[in-house]
């Protein structure tokens, strides 16, 4: 079992003809993802990595039966393409690009919520179900099939945790990047809920970072609803206040968004706080996760 991606997922790649879109389509196909088409306005009729390209999402859906989309569209065009994708009936969308204006993300989030669309990002590595497929940019060699769910605000740290677990033969059920922007399309608690309901997931690791209040808010959900063990790591203990640490959302303002505040909320909710990524291995052994 897995969440979000399964055998019925038929993926299109938006921005497939760009340099990154083409390269990542290659890696996604290589990993066994069912990619049925690509979309780049004006490039319809061409073939990329053996996949047909369409001028519009509507046409791609009609011709291929696509029900999911992953974006490699330049930031300035993402809002437009996102609305088009929802109007074409796609229900799962992954937004990989970074530097999308916050006002655009606010509109995207509102539109998706009103229409029952599940969207991740922006600035996300995507979703990967080990052994089955991926929508995004995760380097597949670090992942192994198993029963631990990972949700991360940071792409590279999701690879780090998956790799640490894979090395001791603890596989992952699904690995999800939620995105690193000040506003993301789906909150941490929403994704935790999917893992809680997934029969293929025995435990969940949250990989967070300074800034925002996703982890603090998710703590309420953990204490009320999570029956599975939850571990959490928060990056940025040594980050100076008021500086954006790469991610647009990773900034400590005043007393909010600090590592200490997040630790406190998560501990109070019953999550096990990991001081460092390598502790994920001990945690997995303690809970006999395989």
């Amino acid at each position, binding site marked *: 079992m897995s969440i979000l991606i399964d055998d019925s997922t038929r993926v299109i790649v938006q921005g497939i003809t760009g340099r*990154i879109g083409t390269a990542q389509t290659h890696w996604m196909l290589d990993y066994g993802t069912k990619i049925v088409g690509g979309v780049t306005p004006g490039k319809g009729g061409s073939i990329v990595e053996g996949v047909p390209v369409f001028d519009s999402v509507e046409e791609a859906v009609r011709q291929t039966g696509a029900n999911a989309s992953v974006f490699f569209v330049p930031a300035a065009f993402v809002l437009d393409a996102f609305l088009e994708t929802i109007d074409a009936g796609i229900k799962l969308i992954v937004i990989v690009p970074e530097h999308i204006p*916050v*006002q655009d993300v606010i509109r995207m989030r509102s539109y998706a919520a009103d229409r029952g669309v599940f969207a991740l990002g922006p600035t996300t590595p995507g979703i990967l179900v080990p052994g089955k497929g991926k929508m995004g940019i995760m*380097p597949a060699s670090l992942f192994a099939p198993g029963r631990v769910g990972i949700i991360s605000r940071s792409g590279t*740290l999701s690879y780090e945790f998956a790799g640490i677990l894979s090395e001791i033969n603890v596989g992952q059920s699904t690995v999800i990047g939620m995105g*690193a922007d000040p506003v993301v399309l789906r909150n941490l608690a929403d994704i935790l809920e999917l893992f809680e309901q997934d029969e293929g997931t025995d435990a969940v690791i949250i990989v967070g970072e300074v800034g925002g209040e996703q982890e603090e808010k998710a703590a309420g959900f953990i204490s009320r609803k999570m029956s599975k063990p939850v571990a959490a790591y928060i990056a940025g203990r040594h980050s100076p206040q008021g500086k954006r640490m790469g*991610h647009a959302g*990773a900034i400590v303002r005043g007393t909010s968004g600090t590592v200490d505040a997040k630790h406190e909320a998560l501990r109070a909710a019953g999550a096990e706080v990991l001081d*460092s990524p390598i502790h994920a291995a001990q945690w997995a052994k303690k809970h006999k996760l395989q």
Partner: protein
Amino acid sequence: MRLHEHEALDIFEELGIPVPRRGVAGTMHEALHLAGEIGYPVMLKAQVLVGGRGFAGGIKTASTPEELKNMADVLLGSEIKGMPVRKILVCEKAEVAQELYVGITVDGYSGTPVIVVSTEGGVRIEETAGTAPEKLASMHIDPSFGYYPYQARRMLRMLNIPQSLISAWTDVIGQLYKAAENYEALICEINPLVVLPNGGLLAVDAVLEVDDSAISRIRQPLPDRIERIENPLEKRGKEIGVTYVDLDGDIGIISSGAGLGMASMDIIGEKMKPANFLETGGGITAELLYRCMDLIMRKPGIRGIFINVYGGINPIHEGAKGVVRYIQEHNLQLPIVAKALGNRQEETWEIFRSAGVHVVTETATEKAVAKLYELVGKN
């Protein structure tokens, strides 16, 4: 990008928000001249882009030209929280009957703009939220419809604001919302918004932070974002397209992701001290990594370099070539440890090893940091 107070005040004034008489001075003589026009007493406020300026001695009151001479001399050329004071704002000192707060920000959790008003201004709003929540009201704005004045009136009634003030305060909130929209602000704030003895309102401080991702489409003129970065290394980082944060240790860090970079800092910080945080983002090339090496080496006293990269969206073998070229051209003899995993990792390891870089092939960053500690310790 955060704007200076005087820039934000200009913008607020243009939109019709009442602001004090003021001017910006770069020398004591300019300050003296301005104060003469405005009339004493005046406030002198250091124009530096850090919070908590007042507590750090960056805000002073001068009642006479003599006082102003001394204060302006001290302020100009001083540093507030490490930032050099190049300009001071000279403005009329308002008579304060009450201090209020109004701010517009983006609530990351609900994914909407939110307006916050408080009858307690002049302090950190988070503190008020903790100690006196009854003095604070907030309202989320539906992004499909935007702001309407009834929302402000409702918040003000909740705070038991006298009817005589509601109209003027509602106007200010509406104009502030306009500023936030025009500049795609992440924060747009007046703190304090002063109630004058005659009942009028005056915005005596202003914060406006523009969304960097929206800068190219904002129609209003904006200052140059890179030019105003004070730290020369951080400025260089922006020029080459990476995030560089200057720290005070001696271990250089290059990472291909923000989370990974922060985790590397945290782990290195246990036993050593990071000199910098450099995060490349996506789009690594050999040239970019060459420039990254050059940038972290500009910091004096670097004793070791830690490279932590993943090949997901990034071609890390290309990046490795740039690092190696820098090492060879500069005959770099420092300990350098690289952890590089993901697509084309074996090729990347070979390239690093060819220049004497210590490659760690296990995933846990702790293992690679331990190797660096061992090598740096020997020096």
